């Protein structure tokens, strides 16, 4: 089993945090081999932030560290959507934040478009946790990881006073259709 996950957003949308939480959940709690590569821009100036996650249950399957054939992809902002279609599997799960992305070029993939920012605003009172709504949505629809492990990872990484608002957002994501 080898799964490639591509996470793309704008600096400040919490893409790196999302990748970290999922990485810890999968490596530490689900006991899988995980490689994560980050490339990022700043929140004030904007620009693309990206995390490539490669996951496997066998260490010998781990080689090249970037996504070449994504099983799962998330686009929180409309960056290079056409270019990224080259690295998506034909039947990949694609999650799109419709708050910022109004249209997409993906025809064969399983596409889910939801307004993560609005959902976050509604359930948690801030759109800053839209990343956790997206994460919840991803794990609910793909089954790539147990919600329980993701919540454990959240607890480990997020400071205590922000935990509740993040978990609220995550759970709202789990409920999205």
């Amino acid at each position: 089993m080898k799964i490639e996950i591509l996470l793309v957003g704008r600096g400040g949308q919490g893409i790196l945090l999302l990748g970290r939480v999922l990485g810890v959940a999968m490596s530490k709690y689900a006991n899988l081999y995980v490689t994560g590569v980050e490339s990022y821009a700043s929140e004030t100036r904007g620009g693309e932030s990206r995390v490539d996650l490669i996951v496997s249950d066998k260490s010998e399957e781990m080689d090249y560290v970037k996504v070449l054939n994504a099983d799962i992809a998330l686009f929180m902002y409309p960056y290079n959507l056409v270019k990224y279609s080259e690295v998506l599997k034909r039947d990949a799960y694609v999650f799109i934040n419709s708050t910022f992305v109004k249209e997409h070029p993906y025809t064969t993939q399983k596409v889910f478009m939801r307004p993560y920012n609005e959902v976050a605003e509604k359930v948690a009172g801030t759109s800053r946790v839209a990343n956790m709504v997206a994460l919840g949505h991803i794990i609910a629809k793909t089954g790539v990881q147990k919600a329980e492990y993701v919540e454990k990872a959240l607890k480990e990484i997020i400071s205590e006073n922000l935990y509740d608002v993040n978990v609220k957002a995550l759970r709202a994501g789990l409920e999205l259709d």
Partner: protein
Amino acid sequence: MRKSFISGNIAIAEGAITAGMRFFAGYPITPASDIMEYLAERLPEIGGVVTQFEDEIASINAVVGASWAGVKSMTATSGPGFSLMLEALGLAVITETPLVVVDVMRAGPSTGVPTKTSQSDVMQVRYGAHGDYVIPVFAPWSAQEAYDLTIKAFNVAESLRTPVILLSDAVIAHLWESVLLAEPGEVEVINRKKPSSPPDEYLPYKPDNDLVPPMATFGEGYNVIVESLIHDERGFYRQDREAYRNLVKRIVNKVLSRVDSLFEVEAYYGDDYKYLLVSFGSTARSALAAARILRKSGIKASLLRLKTLSPLKLETLRKYCDEAEKIFVVENNMGKLVHDVERAAENDKVISLPLLDLEIPEPKDIVEGVRKWL
């Protein structure tokens, strides 16, 4: 063992802590800075010290001094900083000072492209300082190996009284991976030999049979001398050929005589191959993916990955090269390790694949490079 999800740079910091390092001096430089940043929080919690100096020269000299004070010490930098450290690296060699220098490679020459990766320090780390010497150099390809090889680097530094280089790169530095961290007692940690003779009989540079002199620490009652000139067993300056040869040959041989335990390689698909890819560090991950792509299309490719870049055991390289029809040396520079492979193999079989990429090379670039020669 404790499982964690950490970056290659943090893995180096944790490896150093596991090995007993308690003094770090450095000057920030991308992509090595977060080693110091992380240690600045972690080391004081366990009684260690982190100091930022005015530059890399002061940093490595402080590391030499701290090691002589009896504390396992380290610095971390990138290519431009390593250039500045070369003079003191030679000082560490001749004074037989155990220490570890981490070089997280980035694109050069000079300030180059600070945030982008490279493997172009292969020559600098091995041969940059003047004089005759051999310094062990280890090159990890994953966060786990960054952790493991940092521990090995300290163990070698301490047991042989030599500086050791950990050669990482910007890709490994910022790669987050599952890493098993050891609890105390779970991995071997070697500490330097102390003198067993009474202080009045102690000669600071008199080796035991293993070519390594026991090392007294300042303040323990022994006469300690840190001499950068050619010296005899007492540590006194000598300018005759005999003393010169004795010292330089011993410093070189104490490392070379351990080549069997120092030189490590890993072979993938090593039982059945026609084409051999030779690589190291982050690029070896792309090379392994390339070997798999080639094998899927019926081309019998394998990978030999060097974990040690110095000292090299040419017989081992030769053994793998002899089995191959063609050998491709895959590295993210203009072709440096290829010269060593050429020494080990028949020259007409060796093909240099210098990728000179600013990112981790894509497997398809390696596959294309190989296919051109088939």
